[in-house]
């Protein structure tokens, strides 16, 4: 079926290398999300799969066919663009049917396919309109209709929701998830929004500076990030980091302490780490509890949301942390706050930035 195989894919513009060897394997029907900060090459990678960018090196296999030099129309893909890219001079009907018309599909078959696609997306009443007469959400729907009418092996989405307002974004996100479920097609989705990534993906690919940082299921990325970058990128608000010194190394245990932190023993892989080394400790803002214990600091800013309280905290070393406490807490700036956390929720990162998860 229509799997996808990327073998050490490279892309460079002259001297500048933007994609530095990406290896990825996607099985049929999987929903894969490329996520990363701006300029990390995620859109470029998608456009290489689409055939809009040349591949400088490596191999691209779509459905067991080497596609490096295959024209986009013969790759069995369809793409949805961020700004919809509807043809302004054509009606919705013609927009959706344009690809079929170019392929020389007979008129009656074409008409049936267009109406089927319109039915799936509930936009039959829009078929006679021009794109300028549609709202943003409707335009995106037409763009998706244009993709599904071609019955592609692989769907490509390039930040399809970023031009929509917040409410519509949630709605369309669910529709895309439903569409994936109904069609069972392979989908590749590019976004910088990690909520979209977490909710939609079977598999997330985190990219940074043209290099794959980690590939895995959303919850795996959240709980066991491979390195500092993934830990900081996945999860909102961002994970807190602090530099600490190793005091003792045991079997799957590391004891650390620092200027801001009382000695604490954390389950981690201690291979190659010896007492005296500097490592980074990461803890998510939600995992901190307001109890006297390991860490304390001064409240700088309080955001009371009712169900939770966001606190910006200044540690003695000057480091700034974010704490999210359940429920409402009436705290004043300048107040001292004592915190503790479950050692099992903390992650130790070696000096190379790689996470030291316990081996079990």
């Amino acid at each position, binding site marked *: 079926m229509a799997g996808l195989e990327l073998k050490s894919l490279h892309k460079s513009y002259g001297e500048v290398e933007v994609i530095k060897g990406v290896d990825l394997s996607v099985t049929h029907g999987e929903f894969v999300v490329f996520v990363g900060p701006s300029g990390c090459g995620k859109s470029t990678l998608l456009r290489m799969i689409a055939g*809009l960018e040349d591949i400088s090196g490596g191999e691209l296999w779509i459905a067991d066919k080497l596609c490096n030099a295959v024209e986009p129309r013969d790759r069995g*893909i369809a*793409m949805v*663009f961020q700004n919809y890219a509807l043809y302004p001079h054509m009606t919705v009907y013609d927009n959706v049917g344009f690809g079929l018309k170019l392929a020389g599909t007979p008129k009656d078959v074409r008409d049936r396919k267009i109406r089927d696609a319109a039915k799936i997306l509930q936009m039959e009443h829009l078929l006679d309109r021009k794109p300028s007469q549609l709202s943003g959400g409707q335009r995106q729907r037409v763009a998706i209709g*244009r993709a599904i009418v*071609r019955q592609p092996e692989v769907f490509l989405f390039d930040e399809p929701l970023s031009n929509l307002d917040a409410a519509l974004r949630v709605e369309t996100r669910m529709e895309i998830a439903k569409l994936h479920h109904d069609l069972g097609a392979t989908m590749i989705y590019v976004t910088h929004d990690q909520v979209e990534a977490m909710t939609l993906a079977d598999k997330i690919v985190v990219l940074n500076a043209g290099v794959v940082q980690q590939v895995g299921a959303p919850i795996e990325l959240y709980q066991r990030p491979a390195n500092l970058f993934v830990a900081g990128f996945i999860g909102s608000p961002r994970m807190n980091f602090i530099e600490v010194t190793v005091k003792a190394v045991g079997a799957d245990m590391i004891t650390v302490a620092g200027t801001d932190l009382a000695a604490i023993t954390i389950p981690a892989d201690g291979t190659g780490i010896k007492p005296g080394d500097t490592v980074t400790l990461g803890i998510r803002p939600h995992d901190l509890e307001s109890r006297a214990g390991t860490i304390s600091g001064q409240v700088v800013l309080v955001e009371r949301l009712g169900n939770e309280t966001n606190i910006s905290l200044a540690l003695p070393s000057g480091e700034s942390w974010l704490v999210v406490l359940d429920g409402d807490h009436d705290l004043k700036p300048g107040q001292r706050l004592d915190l503790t956390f479950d050692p099992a929720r903390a992650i130790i990162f070696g000096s190379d930035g790689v996470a030291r998860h316990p081996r079990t």
Partner: protein
Amino acid sequence: MIFLRRYWLSAVAVLASVVVFLVPFAFIVLMAFKDQKQASLLDFSWPAGNHLWSNIVEVVTTRNWMLLTAFINSTILTVASVTLLVIFAAMVGFVLQRRKTRFNGLIEFLILAGLMIPPAVVPTIWLLQGIGLFAKLHGMVLIEVAYALPFSILLYRAFIATIPRELDEAAIIDGARPFDVFFRVILPLLWPVTVTNIVVQSVAIFNDFTNPLYYLPGNANATVQLTLYNFQSQFQTSYNLLFTNIALITIPPLLVFLFFNRQIVAGMTAGAVKG
């Protein structure tokens, strides 16, 4: 008095417009009604009698219905040239705007050179004779296209920059070959500029006098502007017929203008603000 004080500048402007734009027109029409005797006075007087119809008959039938031949020639020349211009200029503008290569600078220089360097008549005639296109209508079409191409390209290129590149890409993904992308997606979107091009260039080519004079000699090849010489010579000029002729050949450009008038303004300002 207050009225005059407040609006004197507007009044002057209106008056100036009338003098500059309407008086010459009125002069042409009045002259077309006069007989030869009154017309040769060349004054701004009311016609003594209505000689319009006899003038028209005379103008049209002169030199074996030359004006009709001229109208046919001019129409073919204008339609063919403008069609080629629109297609080629839009194509050049499209490729130049979309595909960045190191030759772009050179190509842009050549386009500007086409605007700046005056056409050299004698070498062009020599070249046309060499390839057997001299005094042929299709040779003339090529010359008009060559002369007008740079300006049309400049008009198109600026507008193509406002068409998002994703449209091309969406079409490519939809399976469009390069010519499909151009003719089915890009060219229809260029309609406002195309209208501007059609009006500006067809009026210019239809009214072109010097180029057909140089490159298209022969009675069978006459274009409308050249028929003016039928009634104007060193020793005798029939001003009534000359101005009747002028009135007649002004009609087609006027029609083109009236027909496209509303859209031309849109084309002129299009691209200034993203719609």
